[in-house]
């Protein structure tokens, strides 16, 4: 008898824990990459959107690959990622609709000031990578199927190198851990500029930008609503409002004005909304 009552009490407790608060605002689930979250960009953008539409954005910050998988599984309503190739495949396969360019920054190859591979000032990214691959230096890779990792793999392919061996260390971790590991190992790595500035500006890592500026180093971010035909439960209308907010003049202006310790980390996509992009 007593145990039966205890069981009911437990069920009640579970229900209490599970029940959403009454009258709570609608929830939009966003899967995004870590760089947009920990730089504080989303904390800067989202309050404007949340207030206007009485909505709570639940941000799940993971690598780009994982974010797209969450979208494919219908576990989120909208994704904000940075891997144009993968994004296009995602849309072509019907997992998402209405991909829009939101903003960009660029990737940089960073490494210790000592620069054993002597790549500082090399304009050609591929040439710089070949020197690192030639030996003597250590490269740290995200190795986590993130947008940065996908970009890195493409750059190695472009340089004609199939990286591997003792000098190539695949971490399987986020950008912050990877930068810190590169710092500890006196190694080279690829980082998006916003993450690098975030860590360098606060003295968390002692690395220098050694290669930058090539066209192939551009890092565009895109937003995609999850396809409601695949996943009828997604909050498609809300997702579309979010997409429109990011590419609207207001959203673009907010991105343009975002600063971290005085540094500009993201550039709004200058191109106005182009249907079918």
């Amino acid at each position, binding site marked *: 008898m007593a145990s039966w009552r205890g069981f009911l009490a*437990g069920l009640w*407790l*579970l229900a209490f*824990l599970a029940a959403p608060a009454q009258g709570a605002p609608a929830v939009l689930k966003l899967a995004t990459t*870590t760089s947009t979250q920990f730089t504080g960009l989303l904390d800067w953008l989202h309050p404007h959107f949340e207030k206007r539409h009485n909505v709570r954005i639940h941000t799940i*910050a993971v690598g780009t690959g994982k974010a797209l998988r969450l979208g494919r599984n219908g576990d989120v309503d909208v994704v904000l990622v940075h891997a144009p190739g993968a994004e296009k495949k995602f849309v072509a396969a019907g997992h998402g609709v209405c991909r829009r360019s939101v903003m960009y920054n660029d990737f940089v190859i960073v490494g210790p000031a000592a620069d054993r591979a002597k790549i500082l000032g090399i304009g050609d990214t591929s040439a710089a990578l070949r020197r690192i691959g030639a030996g003597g230096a250590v490269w740290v890779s995200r190795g986590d199927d993130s947008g940065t990792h996908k970009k890195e793999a493409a750059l190695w392919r472009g340089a004609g190198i199939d990286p591997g061996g003792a000098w190539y260390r695949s971490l399987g971790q986020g950008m*912050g851990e990877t930068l810190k590991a590169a710092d500890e190992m006196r190694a080279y790595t690829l980082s998006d500029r916003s993450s690098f500035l975030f860590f360098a500006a606060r003295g968390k890592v002692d690395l220098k930008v050694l290669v930058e500026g090539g066209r192939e180093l551009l890092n565009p971010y895109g937003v995609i609503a999850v396809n409601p035909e695949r996943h009828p439960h997604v909050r498609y209308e809300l997702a579309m409002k979010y997409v429109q907010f990011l590419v609207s003049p207001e959203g673009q202006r907010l991105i343009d004005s975002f600063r971290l310790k005085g540094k500009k980390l993201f550039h709004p996509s200058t191109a106005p909304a182009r249907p079918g992009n």
Partner: protein
Amino acid sequence: MEFLLDGIREGILLVLRADPDVMAASWVTVRVSFGATAVAGLIGLPIGWALASRRFRGRGAAISVIQTLLGVPTVVIGLVVYGLLSRRGPLGFADLLFSPTAIVIGLVILSVPIVSVFTMTAISSVDQRARETALTLGASSRLAAWMVLREARFGLIAAILGAFGRVSSEVGIAMMLGGNIKGYTRTLTTGIALESMKGEFGFGIALGVVLMAIIFLTNIGTRILQKS
């Protein structure tokens, strides 16, 4: 060294100032930890009792299975529950992924084996004579079972406390099933993971201080209960 001390100082200041982000993560942690421990107790105590006191077919196999589950890494539990709760999974319709309930489900799976095994050990370590003594003095079998539980009560409390300590300090399940959503599913541990990724020592330490305080207060509370 200064780096570390600065972090600790900043952490303590954040706690003293009742920083809203620290408070929010603390509240989520308290909710999911108490919830998961309560549910795990309701499931694990009877399982442990049955394994210790009943002789049934498959008992040895059941003990082996539960002892194996004790060693399952939390990320595996996270993955399996993710597979169940994902929209593509069998329970996707319930819309539980990335919610505190999802964390509770994962933590219950983590802690039921802990409670069961601790309970089984506690009850087995009570002399078999406790039951026989109660019976031969005229107790019903229900009262005799109760007397055994009563004799094992310190072990049972240890089982619950052990589960609480484990779930409140767990990070993989909370991260994978909760999604580390600020103010909603960000627990102290996933918050610490995020802050350490950002290199924010102070905030991470603030969260760690609160986490230890919660576990400490729970232990103290239990001691007082035991004495009374």
